[in-house]
C-alpha cells in the first residue's frame, strides 16, 4: 500500500528541512530530518512509495534543493498539491521528483489513506474511499525532463535546445 501523508498550506522549505541540516547534500542523510519539526513521525515510519499530499503553495520559501532532495531521499513516490511554490516546482522537476497539481485530490485525501498514483497519466485513485482524481497535465518539456529522470540525465543524452523542440 502507498500511504498518504498530509500537510497544510504554504508549507515552507524550512518546515520540510530546517536550514541547520542543509550542510549536507546526501539524500539519505537529509531524509533523516525531513519534516522533523512539523511531523517527526514521518522520517521514522515512512515507507518507500508513500505519497505526500500538501496544501496550496507547497514548498515556498528558500531556493534550497535540499527540500525536494530530502523528500526524494525519504523514498516518497510523489507529491500531490493544489499548487507549488515556483522554485520548489522547478527543483522537484529538475531532480526527478514527480509532482502533481490536483486540487481535488489534495482536498479529499486524508492522512493514512491508501493512494495509487499513475505518474504517466496523472490518474490518482484513493483506495480508502474509492474516489478517483485527475491531475493537471504537465507541459511537454517538463515531461521530457521528468521522463529522463531529471534534467542532469536529460543533458547527458541531449542538448538543452532539444527541450523546446
Amino acid at each position, binding site marked *: 500500500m502507498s500511504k498518504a501523508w498530509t500537510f497544510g498550506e504554504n508549507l515552507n522549505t*524550512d*518546515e520540510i528541512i530546517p536550514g541547520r541540516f542543509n*550542510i549536507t547534500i546526501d539524500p539519505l542523510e537529509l531524509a533523516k530530518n525531513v519534516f522533523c519539526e512539523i511531523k517527526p513521525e514521518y522520517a521514522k515510519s515512512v515507507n518507500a512509495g508513500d505519497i505526500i499530499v500538501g496544501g496550496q503553495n507547497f514548498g515556498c*520559501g528558500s*531556493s534550497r534543493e535540499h527540500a525536494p532532495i530530502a523528500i526524494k531521499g525519504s523514498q516518497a513516490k510523489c507529491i500531490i498539491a493544489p499548487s507549488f511554490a515556483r522554485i520548489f516546482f522547478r527543483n522537484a522537476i529538475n531532480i526527478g521528483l514527480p509532482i502533481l497539481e490536483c486540487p481535488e485530490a489534495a482536498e479529499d485525501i486524508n492522512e493514512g489513506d491508501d493512494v495509487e498514483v499513475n505518474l504517466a497519466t496523472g490518474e490518482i485513485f484513493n483506495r480508502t474511499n474509492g474516489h478517483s482524481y485527475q491531475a493537471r497535465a504537465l507541459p511537454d*518539456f517538463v515531461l521530457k525532463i521528468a521522463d529522463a529522470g531529471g534534467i*542532469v540525465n536529460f*543533458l547527458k543524452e541531449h542538448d538543452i535546445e532539444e527541450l523546446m523542440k
Partner: protein
Amino acid sequence: MGTLIEEIFSRRAGRPVQAGEILLLDVDYIMSHDNTTPLAIKAFREIGKPIYDKNRIVLHLDHAYPAPNVLAAENHKKIFEFVKEQNLPHLYHQGVCHQVMIEEGYITPGAIIIGADSHSNTYGALGAFGAGLGSTEIGVAWVTGKCWFKVPETIRIELTGKTQHGVYAKDVMIYIAGLMGMDGGTYRSVEFGGEYITSLPMNERIVFPNMSTEIGAKCGLIAADEVTLEYLRAQTPAQGNYEMIRPVNPRYERVVKIDVSTIAPQVACHPDVDNVKPLEEVAGLEVHEVYIGTCTNARYEDIEIVANILKGKQVHPFTRVIVTPASQRIYKKAMQNGLIDILLDAGCTVTGTGCGACIGRHGGILAAGERALTTMNRNFIGRMGSPEAEIYLASPATAAATALTGKITDPRELLGK
C-alpha cells in the same frame, strides 16, 4: 509592447514575447553561494560537459562564512578547489551575495541573472531580471549558458504618496506582504512603480524586489531610470550606456494601488511573513535579540539610521543586539564615518559580513522561548535556531528603537522631527 518583464525578455529573445510563452534564453550571469554551489558542482560533474562561459559564473561565500563548523569548512574547501580546477574568474567572500553582485557591477538594466538563492529577485531593483533557482539548474546553466523561463503574467503595484516620518520602504513592503499574502504573487512578475518608487534612492528601492520573494513572485521589477543609472555610475564598475527599459502599453493581470502616506510602521509577526500588524498592536512585546543584517536591510543607509538612533545611548541589558553589515564595502564606509564606533559604544555586537544569523547558521542563534526582532525578510519557524523561538520583521529604525528598550518600540518616539 508589454509589461516590463515582456519588454526585457523580448529584447533577449529577439522578437516580441508575451506572458505564457516558454522561452530558452541566454543568461548574463549565473550566481551561487556556499550553501548551493556544492550541489551545482555535483550536477555539473554528473552532466560531464565543459563550462560554456567561465566569465558568466559568479560564486560567493556568505551563507556560513567564516565556517562555523567542519561541514561548512568542507563546502568552502570544495568550492575553492573547483574554482582553481576550472580557473573561474569570479569568486567573492566579501559580503551577502546579492549586495556584492550589485556593488561589483554584475547587475545592469535589462540583464538576465539567475541565482541559486531565492532572493535573487533583488536584482529587479536595477531593472534587471533576477530569479532564484535551484542548484541543479545552476549546474545546467554553467554547461549551457541558458535557462528556460515561462514568461510570467504581471501584477503591477502602484505606490503613490509620501511616507510619514519614521516609515521606511521596509514598512511599506511588509504592508504589501500582508495585503498580498505569501502566495499572492506566485509565478508572477511583480512590477513596483508609481511616484513613491521613483522618488526613492537605490538602497530603499532594493527592499521591494528583494521581498517580492516573500509573496511568491518569480521576479520583482522596478524600471530603470536616472536614479538607477546615476547609482551605477557612482557606485559600481558598470559604466555602460544602459537602455532604460520601460513597460509599453502593458496588459496587467492585476493592478494594486496603494497610497503610502496612510501606512504606519509595520511588523511581520511570528510565524508568517503575511501575519502583518501595525507596530502599535505589538508594541511592548519583550525582545531577546535584535538582528540588523541581511540582503534586505544592512546597507550603509540602514546602519546609519540605526547609529543615529543609538548614538550616545545604551542598548537594553537583556537584549542581544547584533549588526551584520551586508558587505565589506559597507562595513568599511561605516567604520570610516564613525558609525561602527557608535554601535560598539551603544553595546551592539558588530559581526563580519554574511548571512549568518538569518539562516540560523551562526552569529545569533535563538533559544527556545526567545523572540527576535530583525530587519530580515522572512520569519519561518526555526529559521534562526530553535523552532520554539519567534521572529518578527521590521525596519532598521524599529529594530534600533527596540534595541534600546528590549520591547517592540515605535521608532517615531525616538526620531527627532
